[in-house]
């Protein structure tokens, strides 16, 4: 394996288990809860979801890797684990530097104005107040939130889902990243925003060592990635050249529908 470029991300037999509370079972009364405690059983309302089951691969410098798979196949979970945001149950993820996740669900505070959210998001990513001030206008312009009136000074809960997603993406994209993980971030917003964001991702890719893209739009994957990993039920089904893998995936999903 020494022939390859330097590895930037190594995923080593990673398993991820979510613990979900409140996934209520059949009997969920106080009396049932008490008898459970007495008999030392696990609450039925707590379920474990085994989202990623033993995934291993190596990514190298300069690679753009697409990740495809049906809904709930563990793609987003895997990206979060690579970003170090969701600790794996067993196994290890090794990375070169701190990967950054560009997701549409990078949550912000709904009760606060868009303006406040931009500032908070930037500060949380480690920018200084001076850098925030410098980037602020650019982020707002990029998001296009203010195209139809002064929406940035309204609380986020008043935004449409598309607007909120645009703002989140704009905040996350304001920083340069070593290893970049893009989770469905390109699918949000209207056509003009999509064009802008794809452009921005290409820019970021130029600066980043390695890029991962999760998308349900196979065209995006074909456009951006040379290598693709197909994940199904938390297991790698295929890993290789984009054309081949996406074609196989398309056949699989076409057959099922």
């Amino acid at each position, binding site marked *: 394996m020494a*022939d*390859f*470029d*330097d*590895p930037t*991300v*190594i995923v*080593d*037999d990673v398993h991820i288990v*979510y*613990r*979900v*509370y409140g996934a209520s079972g059949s009997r969920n009364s106080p009396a049932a809860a008490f008898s459970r405690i007495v008999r030392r059983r696990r609450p039925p309302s707590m379920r474990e979801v085994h989202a990623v*089951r*033993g995934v*291993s691969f*190596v990514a*190298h410098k*300069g690679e753009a890797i697409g990740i495809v798979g049906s809904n709930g196949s563990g793609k987003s979970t895997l990206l979060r*684990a690579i*970003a*170090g*945001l*969701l*600790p794996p149950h067993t*196994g*290890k*993820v*090794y*990375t*070169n530097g*701190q990967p*950054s996740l560009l*997701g549409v*669900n*990078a*949550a*912000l*505070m709904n*009760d*606060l104005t868009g303006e*406040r959210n931009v500032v*908070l*998001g930037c*500060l*949380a*990513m*480690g920018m200084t*107040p001076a850098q925030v001030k410098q980037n602020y206008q650019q982020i707002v312009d990029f998001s296009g939130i203010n195209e139809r009136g002064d929406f940035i000074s309204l*609380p986020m809960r008043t935004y449409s889902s598309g607007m909120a997603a645009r703002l989140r993406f704009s905040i996350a994209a304001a920083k340069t990243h070593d290893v970049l993980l893009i989770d469905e971030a390109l699918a949000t917003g209207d056509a003009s925003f999509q064009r802008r964001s794809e452009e921005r991702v290409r820019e970021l890719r130029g600066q980043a060592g390695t890029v991962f893209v999760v998308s349900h739009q196979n065209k995006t994957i074909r456009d951006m990635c*040379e*290598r693709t990993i197909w994940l199904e*039920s938390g297991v*790698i*089904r*295929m*890993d*290789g050249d984009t054309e*081949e*893998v996406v074609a196989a995936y398309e056949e699989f999903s076409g057959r099922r529908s």
Partner: protein
Amino acid sequence: MGEGVELAVTDLSASARAAGGAGAAPPPDTTDLSELARRYGLGVSGARPGLIEYARQVWGRRHFIVTFASSKLAAQYTTARLGQLWQVVTPLVNAAVYFLIFGVLLGTHRGIQNYIAYLCVGVFIFNFTQQAVQSGTRSIPGNLTLIRALHFPRACLPVAATISQLQQLVLSMVVLSGIVLLTGEPLTWRWFLVIPAILLQSMFNAGLVLIVARLAAKTTDLSQLVPFVMRVWMYGSGVFYSTAIFSRHAPHAVSTLLNANPAYVFISLMRRSLMSSVPRDMVPGHLWLKAVLWAVVVGIGGFVFFWKAEEEYGRG
């Protein structure tokens, strides 16, 4: 240029896996991968940094902490018509309720000269700790989406919860000063002692909140239990009455315990600083020493305790 080779190789393994079907892929040699990571100097993603480095990172996010804290506080009242006025009204109403019950109905004010000021100091200062701890139980579960989206030292969240309550306290202190002056206490140089007293209490609170935050992140049941614990603590902290009524006939150990109670120590410090009508013998001895000890031990201990589980936060 190694790309072509690499793609060819991954292709091979891919077809092997595809042939085996889902789940049948043989697990690759794990020692090999960790060895590879070691050879290229890759670190474990999201690994917990050393304690000093972690403290440095938290300090680096101080602007985030302060902005987050004030935003949280502001967001709390955005839907209320009176808005930010509630920040002042809430503690006032709180004090009024306790005055009605303990001052008027139960008459626990015996032996206390300026009962209204005595009560208000107790309520406001205890409220600082109480609110901080209660928001601490929510600081990890309540911000899970933020934790799963962005990378920052998680201790920022409990610390921000404390700062948020500190900002609330500063507002309350303005109201409190008014009450204390109106009830006939003179303005003395001792009022300056309010500042170190609040700082020490903040440090103690931050440590406590960090501890509670880690526990509540694992055990969600804790947030149900905390209000009761806090209420018991409040009744033992001389908020409404002098704890002398417990300790007068009790064994020595009980009074020692009551006098070491950090909440009682911080409340007494504030009373001694603001109120000339509270005589020295009405508060426990060695107040400042106890306050510093509590602040340092719990403050630093809480930080270390929280840091030890840094990688765990955010796991579902």
